[in-house]
């Protein structure tokens, strides 16, 4: 095997976490402010659910997978414009010009929406006006195009499928750090044949928690949370769950489990096959787990305080006056938070969203209680219904 870098585990902390022991809390214990922004519903702006969310000083920009569109709203929720396949010139050589996400680029003080579709990259301004297009570099002999890769502030790029040519069976790396086109470090080598037939294998995921110099990384089938800087990967937290919830230690490597994921999870329904959506905010470590059970009684999204070792269940954060007695996530009713976690995490704000069905259900359950809502929500309840566009929830976390 080729040269893989050594993971630094000197600063590792072991966290023993029993989901059953998670406690509840009130919204105000964790958040100072909760802002609900219903996104305006018009015939043109109607969309399904928020798949991707970016925030600028004055706008919310979202991507909706169901309508395959990028929609631009003001930060008060007013609809501005929409970019979908119809805004892109027809390329007769490309059959489906749908796109599956977007990026934000700052250029000369102007914010541009970058969308790659077919063989072109398109740049739009915040009124959905096409500014320019650039052909995609598809020439394989040339260097890899790193436009959409996660980067550190010093320009170091994270490559999650770095290929090392070495003989007949190529070796890839789950994590590689590249600076100025040169490899700095490479971690977790694998061969394509290693995971053939294991449908749930994806290497691992990187989570951006708003720190330009550090990301969190979780390798698939392990309960380890790593910190990734432009210099190195270090194991920060090793989580131990109760035995009934844990995968066997050798699950990733023992060939007896290979390609038998579904059978294994079906038989061991309590086992967490994935640890996901982890963010760090001061002393609070956020994360979610997934298993084969669907019951809502099971707690699966948590906040762990690294200082006090207190475990809080996100689903059991009770609405109070800070949130106008409205829920802050849809963990108790729908699946948006379960599937996506927070859309965006910064040191100042967390962003999530849920459907109008969820908000109206909460309103119905608050009837006869004489709740007072602010002007925006009052107006929303008056003019909208269960089928209106989703609502963005902006949470200001307490810094502790």
């Amino acid at each position: 095997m080729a040269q893989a870098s050594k993971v630094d585990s000197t600063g590792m902390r072991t966290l023993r976490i029993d989901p059953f022991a998670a406690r509840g809390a009130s919204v105000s214990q964790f958040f100072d402010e909760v802002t609900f922004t219903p996104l305006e519903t018009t015939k043109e702006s109607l969309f399904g659910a928020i798949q991707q969310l970016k925030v600028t000083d004055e706008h919310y920009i979202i991507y909706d997978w169901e309508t395959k569109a990028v929609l631009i709203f003001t930060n008060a929720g007013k609809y501005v414009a929409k970019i979908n396949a119809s805004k892109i010139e027809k390329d007769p050589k490309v059959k489906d010009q749908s796109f599956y996400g977007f990026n934000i680029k700052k250029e000369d003080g102007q914010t541009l929406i970058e969308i790659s579709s077919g063989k072109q990259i398109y740049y739009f301004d915040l009124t959905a006006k096409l500014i320019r297009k650039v052909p995609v570099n598809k020439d394989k002999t040339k260097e890899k195009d790193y436009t959409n890769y996660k980067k550190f502030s010093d320009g170091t790029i994270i490559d999650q499928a770095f290929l090392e040519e070495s003989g007949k069976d190529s070796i890839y790396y789950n994590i590689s750090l590249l600076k100025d086109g040169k490899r700095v470090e490479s971690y977790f080598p694998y061969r394509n044949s290693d995971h053939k037939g294991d449908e749930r294998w994806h290497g691992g995921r990187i989570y951006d928690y708003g720190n330009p110099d550090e990301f969190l990384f979780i390798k698939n089938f392990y309960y380890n949370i790593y910190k990734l800087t432009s210099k190195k990967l270090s194991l920060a937290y090793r989580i131990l769950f109760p035995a009934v919830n844990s995968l066997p230690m050798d699950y990733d490597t023992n060939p007896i489990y290979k390609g038998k994921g579904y059978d294994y999870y079906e038989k061991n329904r309590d086992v967490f096959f994935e640890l996901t959506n982890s963010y760090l905010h001061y002393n609070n470590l956020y994360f979610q787990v997934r298993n084969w059970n669907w019951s809502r009684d099971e707690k699966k999204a948590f906040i762990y305080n690294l200082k006090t070792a207190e475990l809080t269940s996100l689903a059991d954060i009770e609405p109070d006056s800070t949130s106008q007695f409205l829920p802050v996530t849809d963990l108790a009713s729908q699946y948006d938070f379960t599937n996506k976690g927070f859309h965006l995490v910064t040191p100042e704000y967390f962003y999530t969203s849920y459907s109008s069905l969820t908000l109206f259900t909460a309103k119905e359950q608050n009837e006869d209680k004489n709740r007072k809502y602010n002007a925006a929500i009052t107006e929303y309840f008056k003019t909208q219904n269960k089928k209106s566009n989703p609502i963005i929830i902006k949470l200001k976390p307490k810094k502790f």
Partner: protein
Amino acid sequence: MFKLTSVTLGILLSIACFTLNAQQAAVNPGTAKGIVRDTAQNYVLKSATVSVYKSADSTLLSYQVTNNYGEFSFKNLPVNVLLRLDVSNIGYATSRKTFTIPAGKNTIDLQTIVASRRDILLKDVVITVPPISMNGDTLEFNAAAFKLDSNAVVEDLLRQIPNITLWGDGQITVNGKEVKSLLVNGKSFFGGDMKLATQNLAKNAVQKIQVYNKSRNQQSTNPADSTLEMNIKLKKGKEVGFFGKIGAGYGTDGRFETDASINMFTPKMQLAVVGAINNINKIADNTGELQSNSTFKGVGTNVEYQPDFRAEGITRPSALGANFTYNFIEKPTWELKNTLKSNYFLQGKNTNYLADSKTTTSVNSTDKVIEDSNTDNQSSNTTQRFDSSYEYAKKGHNLNFSQEVNFNQGDNVNQTFRRATNLQDVLTSTNNSMNTGNYNNKSFRFGGNYRYSPYIITQDTRFRGFDADYRLNTYNNESERLNLTEFKSFTGTAANQKFNRKYNTLSDGFRQELNLTIRDVKGLIFGNKKYSRLTFDLTNRLLLNSDKNDNRVQDLDTLSNVYRTNAYLNNKVTTNVIEETPGLKISRGFSKSMSNRYYKNLDFAFHPKMLLINQDNQSDRSFQNLKRSYSQFAPDAGITFYNNQYGETSRQYSLDYRTTMRIPDINQLAPLTDSTDIFNLRRGNINLKEVVQRELSFSFYSYDQRNKNTLNYNFTLRAGLNANNIVDSLLIDEQNRRTVYLVNADGNKYLNGEASIRKTYKLKTSEFQFNLYGNFNTGRNPGYTNGVFTYSSNLNTYSTGGINYTYKSYLAVALSQSWTTYKSKQEAFNTQYSGKNVGTTLTASYNITKKLTLNSNISNNTSTSSNAKDIVYTIWNANMVYRFLKGNNAEIKFAALDLLRQNTSVINYGDANSFTIGTQNVLKQYFMTTISYYPRQFGKKGKAKK
């Protein structure tokens, strides 16, 4: 007497509804609210079950599941009465609180109810189960939470659950959606008839009832493909048991009935043995029917199963059946199943049928023939059937085998006397015929089906599976018949005819069918390259048919008194038909969904097929040696649209187009004409062409997704054209002798449809169910009568409406009204026939005490026909049932049937150019006393069988 129109019914019922509502509100004005909190962990309990009981006797008054804020709020509770509140949740000890709602204030805030985890709190643990809970996607009803009589059965339990409706016709709906299958411990129970489980299994043997969605196709993610399934989970130790019935009754006029059944089950095996004999027209045609008519039932009200007063004639049936199921795998799943089922049924039947009828037929635009006919038919029949099936499923592989052997033998004597007169009431002819015969038929059926679909489908899976289906049917029939016919004409002696003819017919043959479907051929050839979004399935159907007929016919030579072979009718015919249908099914689906808003699905399918048929007849008669080939392009097509608006309704619209071809058989092309068939002399037509039928159908259903007072409806419409339809060219002479020539005629059209609506109103202690059903069939049939071409237009309708009302488990009342109409019109003759049958039925069942029940059933029938007097009669049956012994295992029943002595059973029907009215012999008034014993036991040990 019970001619209530639907309008008056509606008014009556709405008044009843109103009074009930008003009463409830006035009696129970109390409200109670609170919040459930785990104070140790500092959170509220969402979806904990909160139940309110009357403290004195623990009667369950109401229950709720807490909302996302952990809150509950009850309305309509009694005031100034000591009440008890139980809160339960999985993993928690039950929290209990007693309270009284003060009168005057009518409301109480119970504040925070503290829930404690079971592992923390060990003392004072109250073990109770909540009535209802959600376990993942499964809705669970816990039997122990419902207090019922110790002899209650599952049906009584289901009636207590607010989300479940048991319909008058046996259908079960949960939140408005129909339960399509019912399992016991995950397995089908004695063949799947829901009644067998719900009316036999003791409520006390049940742990819980689970309801969940089951996908018809494992790979399908389309919610339209899922159906509701109910599983009855038995308590541990109760998976073994037996139940049955033994009963005998005797009554006036020598009427009797007796039946016995025993059903045993273990986790892997089910065995049932049943038997019955009676002479009151209670005819069962299979083991399942006998089983479902000897259920234990509950203490609740039931509209009793009764002898068929409308059946033709008097039948004395006797039957014996056995049914055996073995599950090689104790807990079968979708991916793993291994089951053997077999079934034996023996039935003997003696029927005596007498009928007098008068048929009026239009001969031409002015003349009619009126025929009085008198029939006496005695028949006896013995049927034996043995069938078995085997099912095996393992990860993507599905294999089914089934076989059936049938033996059917019997004899009959039929005498018919006919008199034909003309409009002036002048006798034109008489015909007396007597047929005696016996038959012995054997048949065998075998079917095999193999289906493969890959267990896991990925982008790279090329082979997406195939279906192979094979069926074989063989038969061997033998019959003997003697026909004596004497025809006398009163308008010319030359036409008189007399026959004494013997028939001996042997026939045997087979039919083999092979269906093969290869799914997604595009993927198979091109892999995952997406050349088009269409899906292509290759289909092929091959049918081989062979029939051999050997007819030996002899006539009595009146001179020598010896039977001599009839050289014309004595014949052997062999017919071989090969049918090959290759086809390509092209389909495409579109779906559109918006998170938490809706899911819509549109499917198109186009299935062009080529029908190729080769028909080969070989006969002793050279004119029957025919070889013909047919081919027809026969496309099918369909569009289905499914629209699910979350929390509101789910609806489906389907439009289908079908093409089928019917080829004329040898008896239509070139039959041997038997001159004894004076009233139906069949002449063939060698030039007959194939009939091509094209049908367009539209269907629609709407399911209500609300929890209460649901409204569900559906309808279907079918319209079709038969090109070159084979129709009769009828020649009727004034003596009413008929000769039928067959000809092809275009212009056959039909339109038929049906619709139904169901609505429930569930009140606190009572329930109303309304249902309306209607169907109609209208058509225009071309035909010739005495050489004159005429279109005959028909319209037949049937509609029925009913209301069921149940009050607790004491009273059940069902009122229903049905209308049957027919109308036919002959354009060329300018004649028209019409008739109407209106029936009103009122059934009531009242439990005077837990052991004593009174049942009454009155039905009024009115028959009107365009040219005859109205016939009105009322049948009133009543009975009193008394249950005794500790487990209500014994029953004595006094029954009085046809109390008013009015059963006449009217004949009243019409067809293309005639109508018939008359009477037939039927069951009449009798009184009967029946004693029955129901042995039953659930669980191994305990009380021995009494």
